[in-house]
């Protein structure tokens, strides 16, 4: 029965890679396209997860929500809510230069986490919200995992295609221009503040979707899941390692980093008990080391940002050849 265990593990890993791929794609819109240093991914992730949890969980006493809605509505609402939260944050914070934006977004994410942790009536504070419906949850275990993986993969594919289309379009070109040279983009008539806000909200919505998928996969969400280490910095490492500005790179980065993160846990679990707990921290070290090596030897990431738009291999050119 060993192989069933392995298969399960692989499915589990695949699902997490899919969820992280969404977060990395969201961050790629903000950082890779628009150059916005968002260090508060965990905040949008949490808003998405909790929005969907509140809407889809069963009614409970002393708590707002529990509307028992289907998960699809929860997921759409998660994107809307994350976008709605991103709007005022962006309005205030996007005026800062990038390093200040990073600090401001870390702060905002912490505020969101603390609110969730202490707000009894909305989020059931530290106990979190449990009993969320999971798509295909009633199926036998392995089949259910496999079906969920297929669903996640399909969502990642759709999001990838939507984001890739934007990257190649005039919108993406304008965003990359703003990223490369704000002053010149302004002088070329582009409304920099508004466009940045657009990218920020777009990215946040996808992060919110990632959060919702995470919550429904676990059937529950607790404030512990919104740890900045795993919900923010791991995503940053994925994007930088995979190649910021490259959507495939974002997905590849998610796969590579999560595999290392997850397999190294198995490795440390093999150690005698007194070391196993301490050894968990070596994983953080490993990830940090990896980041250092990538930045030193391949700073543009595994898959560097491609040349776009006018290369004859873009979506627009393909479309054109169809027309002619």
């Amino acid at each position: 029965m060993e192989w069933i265990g392995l298969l399960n593990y692989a499915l589990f890993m695949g699902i997490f890679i899919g969820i992280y791929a969404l977060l990395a794609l969201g961050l790629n819109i903000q950082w890779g396209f628009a150059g916005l240093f968002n260090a508060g991914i965990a905040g949008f992730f949490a808003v998405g997860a909790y929005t969907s949890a509140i809407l889809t969980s069963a009614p409970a006493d002393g708590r707002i929500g529990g509307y028992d809605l289907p998960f699809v509505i929860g997921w759409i609402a998660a994107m809307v809510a994350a976008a709605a939260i991103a709007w005022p944050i962006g309005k205030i914070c996007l005026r800062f230069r990038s390093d200040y934006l990073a600090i401001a977004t870390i702060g905002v994410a912490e505020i969101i986490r603390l609110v969730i942790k202490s707000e009894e009536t909305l989020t059931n504070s530290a106990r979190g919200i449990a009993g969320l419906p999971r798509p295909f949850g009633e199926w036998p275990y392995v089949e259910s995992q496999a079906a969920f993986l297929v669903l996640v993969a399909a969502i990642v594919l759709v999001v990838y295609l939507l984001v890739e289309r934007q990257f190649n379009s005039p919108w993406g070109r304008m965003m990359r221009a703003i990223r490369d040279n704000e002053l010149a983009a302004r002088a070329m008539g582009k409304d920099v503040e508004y466009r940045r806000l657009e990218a920020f909200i777009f990215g946040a919505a996808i992060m919110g979707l990632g959060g919702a998928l995470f919550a429904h996969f676990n059937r529950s969400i607790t404030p512990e899941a919104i740890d900045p280490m795993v919900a923010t910095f791991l995503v940053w490492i994925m994007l930088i390692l995979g190649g910021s500005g490259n959507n495939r790179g974002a997905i590849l980065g998610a796969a590579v980093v999560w595999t290392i993160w997850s397999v190294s846990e198995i490795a440390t679990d093999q150690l005698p008990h007194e070391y196993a707990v301490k050894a968990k921290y070596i994983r953080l070290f490993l990830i940090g080391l990896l980041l250092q090596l990538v930045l030193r030897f391949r700073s543009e990431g595994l898959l560097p940002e491609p040349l776009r738009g006018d290369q004859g291999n873009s979506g627009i050119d393909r479309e054109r050849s169809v027309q002619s």
Partner: protein
Amino acid sequence: MLELDQLVMDFSGFRAVNRCSFKVGEGTITGLIGPNGAGKTTLFNMIAGALVPTSGKITFEGKDITGLSSNALFARGLVRTFQIPHEFHRLTAMENLMMVPPRQPGEKLWANWFSWRNVCRDEVEVERNALEALDFLGLTHVAHERAGNLSGGQKKLLELGRTMMTDAKLVLLDEPAAGVNRTLLRKLEEKIAILNRERGYTFILIEHDMEMIEKLCDPVVCMAEGKVLIEGDFQTVRSDPQVLEAYLGERSEAA
């Protein structure tokens, strides 16, 4: 077309531009000369909306444009280039031009998902214009090169090219010839003259290359220490004793 009235710019106690007034007529190429630190670029920044003047008024086509943002001014046909090239370095030369046209349908997020055909149709047009501009500037061979990899002179040309991608009326050129070799310089002069003649662009040109000023500019405005010293045709300005003292510094030779 453009009228500057008593413009003042203070940088925390330092007065970079002091009561500057002059007019720019439609279809002219106005040369703006003066020693380093005379306030020429500051003046440009105010006209182009990058800086808000401390006091004074800027009128463009009869309308007060003082303090408008640079993207609003762009929409009115006021386009600038930069003294130090501000190319979009990770975009290709082609993309640098293609990003310029305003109100492209593909600049809307939704349009790219829901009316992609429409976006593509517009792109074909934009691409043709960009190719034309690159051809005009002799940059076709580097069309698909990242702009950051171009030479300094090519970046200067690319900046000029960006002004060709929109319906510009007034173009502000900040030292287009700086760092450009002699051959390319003559070409640049030619391009500016053609744009002025055929497209009806009005230019204001900051330049230290007197040959270029002499060939292209009428009138010429000379600034020093934040003030306008004199305004007139090249010969008048060139032989003005004040200008010689402050800038050209060749009094004995010219006199």
